[in-house]
């Protein structure tokens, strides 16, 4: 080994003795930046004449403390987690899917359409809606996949642009009775709304300690375990990671970028679509009350994407992150009671995401700097 080879070895790999120090560094960085985000939010509240303490109380009441609230929080966390899991899959393949919001909405819409079209007995109908919803989301992402692999259009752009297209397409569907619009009698006073799912055609909502939440919660956790297993233990996951980390090595080794990439992108869309269908069939009042309305997706797609990114593409880490973000959402309902505008929670979650990005970025940069310093000689 030459001097430099040694340099690369010793400079890049964190040595055993430094390991403990590194861990506490991580903790310190995370707590510092999260604290900064929270303090900043508090200052904002104070500066506009509010008081931060009741806001915190309201957040906690709304997300966990009040009766029935943590069930609501989990119910919100479930679709976030499902969206995040899909995002993890596409990210592992090296794809940047940022169109979950649209995929979710389109999935839910297609699920609704076929759900009512096909009908069938309650439980079967629910499963049908979920499957078709997933297929719908997958198809919508499939448009981006097709553009990517046959026309060379970057998926970042197409998925983003397709969000609006999808939203408008569903809104269009909600104008026509032959598509999604409910018949005149069951519309109530709204003019763009689908028919409501019958009581028998909804996901069961078990009741635990006075908290009820849809079955989606269990489904999403099981999915997280499955995704984690598939990505780390199966040959398919191995090959997908290979594609994401080095597409040329993958191509040479027999991993078809088109096949694996398109599959990953469509799977990612399918998860978003599934989340949408789950929101429809099990979301309850928080999500359109078992019927499709404009704005049904309610930023769950965007937030789910952020959950995946904050969890650093780790399926199991996405579970707690999803719960935290869901808590901010459900908690916000209680904030308006304190006289502080409830949209402060959007600010808090935004600041929180930014804060959570910082530690990893800082550590990454430092590691890189060390590695680079060590590897400068490498020709």
């Amino acid at each position: 080994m030459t001097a430099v080879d040694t340099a690369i070895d010793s400079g890049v790999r964190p040595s055993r003795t430094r390991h403990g120090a590194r861990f506490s560094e991580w903790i310190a960085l995370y707590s510092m930046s999260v604290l900064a985000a929270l303090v900043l939010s508090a200052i904002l509240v104070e500066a506009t004449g509010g008081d931060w303490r009741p806001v915190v109380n309201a957040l906690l009441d709304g997300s966990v403390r009040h009766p029935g609230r943590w069930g609501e929080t989990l119910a919100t966390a479930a679709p976030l987690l499902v969206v995040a899991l899909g995002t993890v899959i596409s990210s592992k393949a090296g794809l940047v899917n940022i169109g979950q919001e649209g995929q979710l909405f389109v999935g839910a819409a297609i699920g609704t359409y076929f759900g009512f079209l096909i009908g069938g007995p309650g439980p079967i109908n629910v499963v049908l809606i979920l499957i078709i919803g997933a297929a719908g989301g997958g198809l919508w992402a499939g448009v981006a996949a097709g553009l990517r692999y046959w026309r060379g259009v970057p998926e970042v752009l197409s998925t983003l642009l397709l969000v609006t297209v999808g939203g408008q397409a569903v809104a269009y569907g909600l104008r026509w009775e032959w598509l999604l619009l409910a018949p005149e009698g069951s519309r109530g006073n709204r003019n763009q709304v689908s028919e409501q799912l019958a009581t028998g055609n909804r996901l069961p909502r078990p009741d635990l300690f006075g908290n009820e939440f849809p079955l989606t919660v269990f489904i999403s956790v099981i999915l997280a375990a499955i995704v984690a297993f598939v990505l780390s233990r199966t040959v398919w996951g191995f090959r997908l990671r290979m594609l994401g980390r080095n597409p040329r090595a993958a191509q040479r080794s027999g991993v078809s970028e088109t096949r694996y990439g398109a599959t990953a992108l469509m799977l990612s869309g399918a998860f978003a679509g599934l989340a949408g269908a789950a929101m429809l069939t099990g979301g309850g009042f928080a999500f359109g009350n078992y019927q499709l309305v404009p704005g049904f997706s309610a930023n769950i797609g965007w937030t789910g994407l952020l959950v995946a990114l904050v969890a650093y593409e780790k399926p199991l880490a996405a579970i707690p992150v999803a719960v935290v973000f869901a808590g901010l959402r459900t908690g916000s309902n209680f904030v308006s009671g304190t006289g502080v505008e409830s949209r402060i929670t959007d600010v808090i979650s935004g600041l929180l995401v930014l804060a959570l990005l910082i530690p990893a970025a800082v550590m990454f940069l430092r590691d890189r700097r060390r590695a680079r310093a060590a590897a400068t000689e490498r020709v």
Partner: protein
Amino acid sequence: MADFFSSVYEIFTTETTYSNGALLAGVLAFAATGEWVAERSGTLNISVEGMLLGGAFTAALGYHVTGSVAVGLLTGMVGGMLIAGVQAEMSHRLAADQFVVGLTLNILVFGLTGFLENEIAPDSTLARKFEIPLLSEIPLVGEALFWQRWPFYILYLLIPFSWWLVYRTRWGLELRSVGENPQSADVSGIDVNKRRRQSIYYAGLTCGLGGAFFLFGHVGPFENTIVGGRGFIAIAAVIFGGWTLRGTLAGCVIFAGALSFRISIQLIGYDINSELLQALPFIVTIAGMAIFAHRVRAPAALARPFIRGLR
């Protein structure tokens, strides 16, 4: 059907159609020009939406405090640049993912302006109209282009200036090199991430102006839903234009035309698929990319972060 066509004809021969279109195109042009600069440096800056909204809000604040549109424009720029600051420093100093930062910023600004709008409730107004004699008498488009609320005319300076900046100055040359091949630029002694940060600040400035113009030229009182996806249309315009300024502006005009056509035709009682028309800019952009993606070359390092020693 003939009736419909005569209505369309009427729309195309009415000056207000062009005025409305020009207003919308103006907003898009402010945002897209800055976004174009940012993308040429290699950043796919998706926080345009947030920058527009932030700019509009701080412009309203500025007007609220001083009662002057000019001050409002200035504070609008500052607002846009504040958001640009977060985007730039996070993504090109700390090397956080630019899409995450951008998405988060959009959500954050939306929440923040909604929150502050409620707490402060700034009031604002439309700016004065200003007629440029003679030119405003050009049939059809004269009024649209030369009898506008005065902040519109800033575009006539901003666009050529941006072109000159990118193609004729050293800064622009370095900017383009950074967007094409950051490794080479680095070796040539150019601070890659600094140039990228600067270009995002520039985008923040023009988007802030755009937001302010939207407020003073189009809406009047501030509401945090006013931007409504126009930032994304501006991004679409840059892509549609194949990363040239000319194409970008053409994209702005076409998209604005489509959007204002919808308004016009609704005004005379037709409802032709407003959803389709709203989605049109995006569909056109996607179709354009699908057709031209192999021929049009995006900046080679677009959306690729630069970290020294990492290819």
